[in-house]
């Protein structure tokens, strides 16, 4: 009995030590564990010029400009925002299917001297909501949600919505 009790305490003690060691390590490496930085992070503390990093946020509504560069390659410019701050991004490549205004994106690149972020890679970031197309249409039609403005309304308002019974054409609220 006492041996078992001793083993149990030893195990709990080891667990406590290991747990706090892990917590301390993770806290120490906090900055390196971040996959991307937000425009506000950049505004607060700009990374040294020429250093590649990832910038993440929402594609600002109405900021996407699609052009064709002199070499015939697509040249897209858009702003990545997190609300208070925004960074202009230039990208010449194929955008993922999920890319649209209001969508979350993570871009890899370098900040130019003109403050434009030149991206070599653009990844779309999916939010944690899933809904059938009819429900999304009903929310859009009733004016509860514009996907270009950002995230959908609180899930409790739509996750049991029956699209056929949704109030259509009601705007505002």
């Amino acid at each position, binding site marked *: 009995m*006492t*041996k*078992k009790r001793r*083993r*149990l305490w030893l*195990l709990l003690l*080891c*667990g406590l030590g*290991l*747990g706090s060691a*892990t917590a301390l390590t*993770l806290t120490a490496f*906090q900055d390196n*564990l*971040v*996959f*991307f*930085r*937000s425009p506000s992070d950049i505004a607060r503390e700009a990374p040294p010029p020429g250093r590649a990093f990832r910038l*993440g946020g929402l594609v600002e509504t109405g900021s996407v400009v699609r052009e064709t560069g002199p070499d015939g390659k697509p040249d897209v410019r858009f702003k990545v925002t997190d609300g208070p701050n925004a960074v202009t991004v230039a990208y010449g490549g194929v*955008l*993922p*299917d*999920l890319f649209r205004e209001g969508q979350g994106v*993570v871009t890899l690149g370098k900040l130019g001297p003109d403050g434009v972020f030149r991206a070599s*890679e*653009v*990844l*779309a*970031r*999916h*939010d*944690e*909501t*899933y*809904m*059938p*197309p*009819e*429900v*999304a*249409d009903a929310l859009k039609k009733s004016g509860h949600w514009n*996907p270009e403005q950002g995230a959908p309304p*609180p*899930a*409790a308002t*739509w*996750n*049991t*919505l029956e699209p056929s019974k949704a109030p259509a054409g009601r705007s505002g609220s």
Partner: protein
Amino acid sequence: METADTQPLAAPPGAAAPMLRGGNLHRFANPGQFLRLAARVQPWLTWSAVLALAVALPWALLLSPPDWQQGETVRILYIHVPMAWLAMGGYLGLAIGSAMALVWRHPLADLACRELSPVGAAVTALCLATGSLWGKPMWGTWWVWDARLTSVLVLFFLWLGHAALVRAFDDAERGARMGAILALIGAVNLPVVKFSVDWWNTLHQPASVTRINAPGLHVDILYPLLACALGFSLAFAALVLARTRAAVMERRIRALQLAAARRADQG
């Protein structure tokens, strides 16, 4: 108290040896009870898993609606999410079993852990593979080294490492103890996997089902997902139980063969 504790240690080694051998057989008295109970539970578990998956899979993969922006690709979720839950829930089971094996020296817990880890490695591999297949069309990449994906990869290596380590020793008991220690050390990875999406910026989206406010899934997607999770969990449990039963019976056969060989030696 003191004398009672030291008495078995004080016994001469010659006397301890046959007692230990007899103890080896006696130790399976409890597993015998387990075998009887498990034989009764097994058909119920297996058939409820078959039934649940027979309902859940067509519901999820054929009848449920697509997502408004992911389209049909959302169906990968019905495999990916249950596999992710099982990878973590199964590892929690492995950690609990390992703690029990270390503290109470329960041989059945050792065996269950040994049989659990290959199944856990398989579901974690499926979680990673389906996630990668979803990531390419949706994110635009097969893989990124963000905190969630990396910690799940570590979880996969822990499962594989445990499965390999417990089988790497000639002395099965020693292997089981090493495996239990590895499993418990690896358990610190579990909260990292779970909360990585909240603690750090990741490409992986945060949790949808276990959000503090309402789940971020429409019920037409949520219910088939929960049905799939139930079906896969039952299948996982049925598989691990069947493997553990087989392992206990294997041990028994080996013990009987050893006893028979010893008798033949003496006779």
